[in-house]
């Protein structure tokens, strides 16, 4: 369970990749090239990367990240060029310009994109692991929920369902202090998100969400528990959102001293310090990580910017299967025939 040096450096790589990719997205937004919103995960990189890193694709493990879990997508093999192309609304993006940001899915690589109504994917991920269980696989699912979305009805239905069915699911509850502008004190009367998980009879753990190695260890325990029939676990990662909800939000509602407290606990600086102080890696090796990240992003951004926008009429199609599958004869003209 202890991560070796190359793996610890890889954690750092994915965290740096997340942050630098989002820095570049920030620039693209300022240049007016991103047509939609930008939802950064600044300050939360350790939670996303450390948790997803505990999954095992040899068992077919699958993750469903939130918008602020870009790092989890990257761990599973999503490429920066795909993310750039999504934000830039290019025709060759994974969704062909039909959906935005990291709302994209690849079952082969093991990630299922989220949708904007929050909590929905917890219910969907129940089905993913229920199916795997029925197919006699050892697959574990991991799904993320924010402090705000633990107040949705579907979250409670799905958490209860997972517990009752003893499903191999790990719920990473990211407590980043605010749901848009609403602090957790206005979200719930209980102190911890895990209190909500406990109510359904699932194992819970609280972890420092800015400590990547701690998040990894906690997640790994939960993944093994799930794989061995121990049912769902809810891990609360205490972290902080260092930007507003989206780029337009200046976060004026967050007290300055709170921001300052968390700035000193930056997850990347924290991991770098840990690696150098424990002499796991040299400063040179840590600088190499940043160089490697920059190289990948240079190439991928250049590719994405060279891609064409989607053809307008590619808005048509893929609403239904072309032949209706087994219900032969179901030629679905739908609204398409009228353009």
């Amino acid at each position, binding site marked *: 369970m202890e991560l070796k040096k190359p793996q610890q450096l890889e954690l750092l790589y994915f965290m740096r990749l997340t942050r630098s990719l989002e820095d570049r997205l920030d620039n693209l937004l300022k240049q007016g090239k991103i047509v939609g919103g930008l939802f950064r995960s600044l300050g939360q990189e350790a939670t996303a990367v450390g948790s997803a890193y505990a999954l095992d694709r040899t068992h077919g493990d699958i993750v469903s990240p939130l918008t602020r879990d870009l790092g989890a997508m990257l761990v599973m093999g999503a490429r920066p060029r795909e993310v750039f192309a999504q934000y830039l609304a290019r025709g060759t993006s994974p969704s062909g310009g039909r959906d935005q940001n990291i709302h994209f899915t690849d079952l082969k690589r093991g990630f299922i994109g989220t949708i904007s*109504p929050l909590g929905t994917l917890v219910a969907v991920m129940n089905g993913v692991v229920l199916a795997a269980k029925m197919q006699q696989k050892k697959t574990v699912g991991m799904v993320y929920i924010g402090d705000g979305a633990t107040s949705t009805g579907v979250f409670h239905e799905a958490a209860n369902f997972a517990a009752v069915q003893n499903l191999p699911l790990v719920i990473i509850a990211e407590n980043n202090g605010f749901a848009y502008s609403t602090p957790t004190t206005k979200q719930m009367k209980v102190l911890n998100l895990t209190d909500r998980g406990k109510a359904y009879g699932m194992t819970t753990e609280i972890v420092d969400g800015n400590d990547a190695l701690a998040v990894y260890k906690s997640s790994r325990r939960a993944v093994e528990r799930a794989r061995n029939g121990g049912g769902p676990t809810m891990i609360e990662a205490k972290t902080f959102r260092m930007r507003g909800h989206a780029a337009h939000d200046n976060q004026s509602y967050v007290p300055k001293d709170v921001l300052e407290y968390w700035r000193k606990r930056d997850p990347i600086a924290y991991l770098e310090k840990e690696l150098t102080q424990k002499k796991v890696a040299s400063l040179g090796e840590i600088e190499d990580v940043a160089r490697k990240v920059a190289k990948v992003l240079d190439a991928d951004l250049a590719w994405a910017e060279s891609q064409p926008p989607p053809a307008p009429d590619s808005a048509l199609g893929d*609403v*239904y299967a072309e032949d209706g599958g087994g219900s032969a004869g179901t030629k679905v003209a739908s609204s398409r025939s009228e353009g």
Partner: protein
Amino acid sequence: MAAITLLEAIRQGMWEEMERDDRVFMLGEDIGVYGGAFKVTEGFSERFGAERVIDTPISESAIVGAACGAAMMGLRPVAEMQFIDFISCCFDILTNYAAKSRYRQGIGIPIVVRGPCGGGVHGGPFHSQNVESFFLNTPGLKMVEPSTPYDAKGLIKAAIRDEDPVLFFEHKLLYRNPKIKQEVPADDYIVPIGKAAIRREGRDVSIITYGAMVYTALDAAERLQQEGIDAEVIDLRSLLPFDREAIVESVKKTSKVIILHEATRTGGMAGELTAVINEEAFDYLDGPILRVTSIDTPVPYAPPLEEFFLPSVDKVLKAARSLAAY
């Protein structure tokens, strides 16, 4: 071969699909040992086991959410709503997840969400609704509602085999109605989604309808015959997509149209069908398209109120007579 009820036909269709394809499984409230509130799944748990006939908490979003996830992994879930009214509790999953998945992420969601619909049984405002209009405006969903045992079996099989999410509406009044019992083939067959059926040929007026209202239309047609009006009755069977061709063909033949449905009036199927007829067969019309529907209120409980609320043979006759004047 014995004649069977519509309920038994749905059972047979699902039973055969469960036998034929081990990817098919069911989930819902009280569907296991108890066999479902209407006993549609009675005996399934004994035959197929609790793993394929899953009793769930009262959590429609969790039920349909789990169905979506399992479908993404290659299974064929059939989710039961104890009453179709409760489908509103999982509106988000159906409209935002199931319906959009193929379009935005290239992954079809082959699920069936089925349940008892309709009034006339004094079920009151929460056990009597017809919900098709809530979903008609959602590209990506399909909807079917059988009126005969033959169609019920063929359509449930088609729905289970379909690559996209299908809402399957079962009218409670038809479940055990002995008058509509039918012999159905023992051989495997499906009724294709998207195809209407002509229940009665006629020359003078088309009554376009579906579900239990098919029988209201047929009763009205018998009475109209005595008055010298020859009505055609079209049973849509599929509500989304609906059979434009069959509708337009019938309108071309009769030039007069009544659209009859049990769902309430404003924003109902009839409005959409009227628009399609206007767009595709306006030149053939010889009078206004008339709607016979329930009134725009919740479904009331007391028998005199519910009778007032629902469409009836008399209301169809009145519409047909007024059309005959054109």
